[in-house]
């Protein structure tokens, strides 16, 4: 079996679900003939035709709203937004309309909104992390895979989910990260974190591209005799409280790492949950390694300074274990 990339894994998942369920269709600007901004949907127009791979005008409000309408009628739209920075245009539609539809009006919205959120070298808009804002909205689910296997399995789960799932993709992982897909119908359940590395001294809780920086840090730390357990959240809403609790009760020390900015980022929420559920198990404060609270600059030297890097993680763990 050969390894495929994170990007190919997403495409394979969409392809399999489109083949399996005629109600699944794709909606977005430039997803057909052009195959999407990053070629995620490349080839699907040829395979499924223009009534299942629908190129739209440049209208995020309409794309997301129309997906909701079609979803009410039992279809399963998978929406691509060009850069999830532009998902801000659809905030009202997602937070006010889609998220409340079932509670308020009994309308279901089985739909997926996907696109690249993270990435490097894109500047203040293309890679603006938008996940925390949506995790805050009851009624939405949010996933953000770090591995190719999870990208595929979570996409299949998201398409089958009866609620709206925001599927964040990290542009830098598209080609860089590869994996061998498990045979058969590979579905990764929404809401379950994954222990990416076992350890005993400290728990590093993370998601998306930060996972790979954390894995590098864990390797470095191992050389220093520090055993770090790495938890890849995979799903950000709903959070897997049991998995978070289990790792913290095991190691008594926790670090949360994400590429999103610090204030109001998900690390705060996770810290609060750890504090509520595992206060007595903690031997040190929960620390956060995150992006600085600034818009993400474009030039690589600036960007590297703003985003958390492997040495920052190593340093924070050293602080934790020597606390």
């Amino acid at each position, binding site marked *: 079996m050969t390894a495929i990339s994170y990007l190919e894994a997403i495409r394979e998942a969409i392809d399999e679900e489109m083949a399996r369920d005629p109600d699944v269709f794709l909606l977005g600007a430039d997803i057909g003939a052009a195959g999407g901004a990053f070629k995620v949907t490349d080839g699907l127009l040829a395979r499924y035709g223009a009534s299942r791979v629908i190129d739209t005008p440049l209208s995020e409000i309409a794309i997301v*709203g*129309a997906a909701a*309408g*079609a*979803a009410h009628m039992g279809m399963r739209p998978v929406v691509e937004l060009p850069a999830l920075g532009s998902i801000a245009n659809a905030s*009202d539609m997602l937070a006010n309309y889609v998220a409340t539809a*079932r509670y308020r*009006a009994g309308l279901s919205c089985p739909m997926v909104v996907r696109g690249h959120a993270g990435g490097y070298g894109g500047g203040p808009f293309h890679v603006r992390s938008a996940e925390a804002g949506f995790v805050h909205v009851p009624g939405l689910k949010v996933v953000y895979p770090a591995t190719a296997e999870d990208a595929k399995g979570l996409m299949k789960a998201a398409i089958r989910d009866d*609620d709206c799932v925001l599927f964040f993709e990290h542009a830098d992982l598209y080609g860089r990260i590869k994996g061998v897909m498990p045979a058969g119908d590979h579905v990764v359940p929404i809401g379950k974190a994954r222990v990416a590395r076992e350890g005993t001294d400290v728990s590093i809780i993370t998601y998306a591209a930060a996972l790979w920086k954390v894995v590098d840090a864990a390797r470095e730390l191992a050389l220093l005799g520090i055993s770090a357990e790495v938890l890849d959240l995979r799903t950000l809403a*709903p959070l897997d409280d049991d998995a978070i609790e289990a790792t913290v009760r095991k190691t008594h020390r926790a670090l949360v790492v994400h590429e999103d900015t610090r204030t109001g980022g998900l690390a705060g929420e996770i810290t609060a949950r750890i504090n509520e559920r595992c206060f007595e198990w903690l031997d040190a404060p929960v620390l956060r390694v995150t992006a600085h609270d600034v818009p993400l600059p474009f030039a690589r030297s600036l960007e590297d300074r703003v985003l958390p890097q492997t040495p920052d993680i190593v340093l924070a763990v050293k602080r934790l274990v020597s606390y």
Partner: protein
Amino acid sequence: MPPRDKAPVRAVARRGGVAPSAGLSREQKLELYYWMRLTRSLEERLVALSGEEKVVGELFRSLGQEADAVGSCFALERRDVMSPLARNLGAMLVKGATPVEVLRQYLGRADAPSRGRERNLRFGDLARGFIGQLSPLGDMVPVMAGVTLSFRLRGEDRVGLVFVGDGATSTGAFHEGINFAAVNKCPLVVVVENNGYAYSTPTSRQSLARQLVDKAAGYGVPGEQADGNDVLAVYDVARRAVDRARAGEGVTLIELLTYRRAGHAGHDDQSYVPSGEIDTWASENDPLDRFARVLSGREKVPAAELGAIDQRVQAEVEQATALAEASPLPDASDALSGIYADPPG
């Protein structure tokens, strides 16, 4: 005095042959009258209940706009889907919403369609083909584009109709939604209910367009305008648009000219309205009066027959009120469930 005197109502029915309403039977016309009367009487009851402080939240009136809501929805089939505004009570009744549901919503009862989770007319039922609106105006245009896109994709013989206010035409959602629907040839009728005001903003401050129907060309769709207080003219223009949608010809933009006589909501003193404007519309251009005159005149319906309808409506409202007032208040235990299909762990 029309709301925008620079925008004369084109006699659309006269263009292109016989008006569809010419084919309506006497019974159908009386049915139109019934829905308009029911709308008005039900709202009058709500006003009374509001005076007794029984209505929870604000009351939105469609006084003087009954014809546009009723006439346009009368062009739909049961399988079609419609999305109303806060003022489109008549449209919802035609689509099957019942007076008791409406009363329970306004009284905030546990057995109201939204179980106390939402206010006033914000409820719907896919089985009867109407989807409730929500507060952010314009959002239902994209949603209805998607609903009708699904009809086209699945080859279903169904159309959609979405109402937008003159105010909501200024929203990004309206623009993106109608354009999306047009490009995708969605079987959707977009009805702009131009009642002269969006809260305190007159239509002339909402848009410099000579008439809102002038927006149609910018989306490459047919645009038609009608006198929204002439229920048959409304039916005609809606029916043509519905037929076009059903025939695969996509979107039509309809502007219905009417007038919001009872203000934005209960708290609105309408001090910003030029004096006399409301009275003129009430005395010269009441849609129910106008239609009653047509029925008793041209259609030769005896006064007693119309009176009987009025009485039937009154009895229905009475009965519904009794039921609604006996309904229980929502129970707090219902507050926390039903956010997801499958509650997450």
